[in-house]
């Protein structure tokens, strides 16, 4: 069996609340990063509060969400986070990914991490489909998701408002059978 946590450029690892709090203390200052990833207003949390948020999330076993840190290969630098929030009854899950360290944007790390988390969803969680949302202005994310095999399922008109401008929300999905037809699923076997 292959190592399902290891990709070509990054690996999925546990989320140490200390490390994640320190990382997000820095990444949250980058409001472009925040505005690419989120619809919430950008805000700044203390390291203490961030740590508590990560700890609170880890209390339940089995967890509500399956969350990972994203670390580079081979130097093991923490550059982002990804996770799946499953709805077991319908075998669907929301997936999210964030590359917080902007020095690693546009280098394929996000795509590599996304392939790993999607694979985890299908071969470990046995999902039937995976769902995601993104902002219409996030062209880099759209390209990443298309590369991994997500298909556009619709747009929520004027979902968000920033600096007085309305933008749409894009929603995408990948079905189990679609993923099985991709090259990365071949490698997983």
């Amino acid at each position: 069996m292959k190592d399902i946590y290891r990709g070509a450029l990054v690996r999925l690892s546990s989320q140490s609340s200390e490390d994640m709090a320190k990382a997000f203390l820095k990444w949250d200052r980058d409001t472009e990063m925040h505005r690419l990833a989120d619809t919430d207003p950008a805000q700044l949390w203390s390291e203490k509060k961030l740590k508590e948020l990560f700890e609170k999330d880890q209390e339940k076993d089995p967890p509500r969400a399956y969350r990972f840190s994203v670390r580079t290969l081979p130097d093991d630098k923490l550059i982002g986070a990804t996770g799946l929030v499953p709805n077991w009854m319908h075998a669907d899950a929301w997936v999210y990914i964030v590359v917080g360290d902007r020095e690693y944007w546009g280098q394929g790390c996000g795509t590599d991490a996304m392939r790993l988390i999607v694979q985890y969803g299908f071969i470990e969680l046995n999902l039937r489909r995976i769902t995601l949302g993104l902002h219409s202005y996030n062209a880099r994310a759209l390209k990443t998701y298309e590369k991994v095999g997500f298909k556009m399922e619709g747009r929520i008109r004027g979902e968000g408002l920033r600096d007085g401008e309305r933008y749409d929300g894009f929603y995408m999905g990948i079905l189990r059978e679609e993923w099985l037809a991709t090259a990365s699923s071949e490698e997983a076997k």
Partner: protein
Amino acid sequence: MLDIQTQLFEAKDIRFGPIDHEAHPEIESKWTHDAEFMRLMELKPVRPLSPAMVKKQYESIEKEMEEGKSLFYFTIRAREDDHLIGKALVEWVDWTNGNGFLRLGIGAAEDRRKGYGSQALPMLLRYAFGELNLYRVTAVVPAYNNGALRLFQKFGFMEEVRRRKALNRDGEIWDLVSFGLLNSEWREQNNGRG
């Protein structure tokens, strides 16, 4: 002109009211034993609730209304005898972006197919757009709920997202449809008056 005379909570045969913590738990408990109705309303696993459990839910609903400011919940009553017909709500209101999600349910079988939904929905829209000032509203409907699909189409909602094969009911796989209506579209439909 600003029209504050039109009552927000009164329609032809129905009205919006608050929760009645004494009378309603018994009635709503009965509705939760109607699996067919519950499966049209809910995407979560359905389960029958005792009146005491419903009472607890009502308390958490009003707590959420008070503290979260993101839930606006109404019971639907018959004007004739004030009996509980259903519920209508705006939930998950995102104030930063001006979005909210709508939900509507007619609980008792004998009150369905009487057009109450078609009276409740415009009242809920006027509330969402004229009172909460939302930019848009969303309604999420399982593709097997034909009544709801027709209702939202009738009131000018646009199908925006279709999550393919997102639901499993009785081993059958269904899409999950997301409808949207913008405040500007609603105003146009109502000649700018709402």
